[in-house]
């Protein structure tokens, strides 16, 4: 009933149809070094981005950066650091004590240091948030200039749950002092292969 009355009120009160604007993406194009810009922006938002020569180096790098991480979930086949295995049937609350998670990013965005990850990359939705530290892996050629290009690239996906992550969880709610590590992961490292 409320549905009908709301829709009727909208119909009665809305103005005459205005057109959707044409979007000319040329206005936003720039000839910049995507990898370099991406790395700078990840740093700007409180994360760390590292260029690796080969995916084979990833385990050594992680061990080096996170020497105390024990309970690890790896969602990429190239890493053998995973000590906890998860499946679709894993109870999300059990991930409470995870130290580190490794997730494949489908693409990255140079302009804001964001990485797009989708549910099929990490199986349990809460994983990238509940883990203490988060490691993302993206291919160099999957770095896009801006968000428009990123959305074009994910437009054909199977839509369940996905997100852009830009840096570690943070807050400035106490007197505008920036504190890294609010409710989600307290650190973020992005490896670019």
């Amino acid at each position, binding site marked *: 009933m409320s549905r009908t009355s709301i829709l009727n009120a909208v119909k009665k009160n809305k103005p005459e149809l*205005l057109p959707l604007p044409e979007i000319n993406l040329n206005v936003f194009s720039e000839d910049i070094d995507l990898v370099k810009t991406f790395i700078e922006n990840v740093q700007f938002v409180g994360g760390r981005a590292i260029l690796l020569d080969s995916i084979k180096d990833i385990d050594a790098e992680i061990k080096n950066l996170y020497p105390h991480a024990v309970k690890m979930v790896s969602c990429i086949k190239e890493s053998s650091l995973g000590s906890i295995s998860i499946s679709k049937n894993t109870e999300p609350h059990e991930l409470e004590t995870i130290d580190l998670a490794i997730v494949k990013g489908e693409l990255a965005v140079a302009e804001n240091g964001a990485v797009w990850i989708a549910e099929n990359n990490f199986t349990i939705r809460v994983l990238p948030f509940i883990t203490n530290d988060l490691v993302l892996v993206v291919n160099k050629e999957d770095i896009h200039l801006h968000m428009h290009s990123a959305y074009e690239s994910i437009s054909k996906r199977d839509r369940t749950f996905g997100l852009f992550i830009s840096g570690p969880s943070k807050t400035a709610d106490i007197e505008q002092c920036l504190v890294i590590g609010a409710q989600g992961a307290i650190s973020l490292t992005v490896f670019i292969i």
Partner: protein
Amino acid sequence: MAHADEAAIFNKDEEKVDWHDKALWFVRQKRDKSAHNVKGWETLRNLASAIKANVMSNLDNYLIQFEENAQKNGITVHWAVDADEHNKIVHSILQQTNVKKVVKSKSMLTEECHLNPYLEAHGIEVVDTDLGERIVQLAKEPPSHIVLPAIHKTKEEVDVLFQKHLGTKPSHGDPQYLTNEARKHLRDKFLKADAAITGVNFAIANTGGIVVCTNEGNADMGAHLAKVHIACMGMEKLIPEEKHLGIFLRLLARSATGQPITTYSSHFNKPASGTEMHIIIVDNGRTEQLSREDFRASLHCIRCGACMNTCPIYRRSGGHSYKATIPGPIGSILSPGKDLTKHSDLPFASTLCGSCSDVCPVKINIHEQLYKWRQIITKNVPQPVVKKTILKMAGRVLANTKLYDFAGKSARFMLKYAPRWVVYSKLNTWGKARDLPEIKDGNFDQWYKKRQRHE
């Protein structure tokens, strides 16, 4: 109490006001820096404005399309005409699923509907999980800013509050320590919650999905751990297509805090297996605002808070002085539409400098709408006698050259020779914290004529 009286109270602590003023101006500067880094920023603003105008002109069809797509994806869609119906729907979902503990991420809509007291009265625990919102919840206060809810609190005040409610040690307001303690406290709440309530930043008609943006990760911690996720949205949150997110997400965080994007921009399309997802579409006065040609564009707002950060009045009067869910310039054009008498002072809490319109990412003509509300309010709401009489007298004087000349002469004479206590009497509100400029002998007319003679 009127806005000016509330502001006077806020201004009693001069040091705090100065801090508040500078802290928000600093956020405004970060916004500028961030915006100037984007090639085509003004194009983004123009596009966002035009898309929102299209949305308003076709809102019924977009709502139907959105509902259809959301339902296809297994999401239950509810409709609420007002705050009361919204609260009842939330409560009935919680009852059906036997929920006793709820975690909630930031949602100005649920503030507008006063959802927390409603649920609490029905024996349900509601924990606000955004750090700033948790702070004001513990202090039993409303948020004073839509993006920075606890901007009016000092770190020492937070320290005392956390000692009392979270059992923390005195830390002289160490933000790192206090945030860590809040993290532990909220972790426990997330793990024990039966349901999560979130707001909605954008609802996408052509996919039926919603996007929720946070920096802390609190919306996701709640939504992905609980069995039930309820997302509450004002009907104006709709955008036509997913690709339009490219435009809005580029604008939102940069305008809000100067970040290039929020830490998390989560796209919810389908509930996870074994969980329920509900979306409540709320009107609560929005269709009425849609009918007002002059004020319709206020519904374009994406809640970035940039107009607050730049406003010289907001920065020096604090969010609570507005006595409205949404304070600041945008709140002052939204609130009179809900209750003209109650909020009749708000459109006057402005210098009409236009800075709000200049920074608005969706180009709402905020200062023009403030001016238009003033025209309506002076006709419909009784004005204070002093203000009315003074303006009437001023009108008469300004319309008559001789009278105007005489008034000018006597004013100059008075200001020069009358004792200070007369000039700075209670009637001179301008002179409360300022000195009047030095008084010259003649008026502009005389000065101009003299200057011409000398040439």
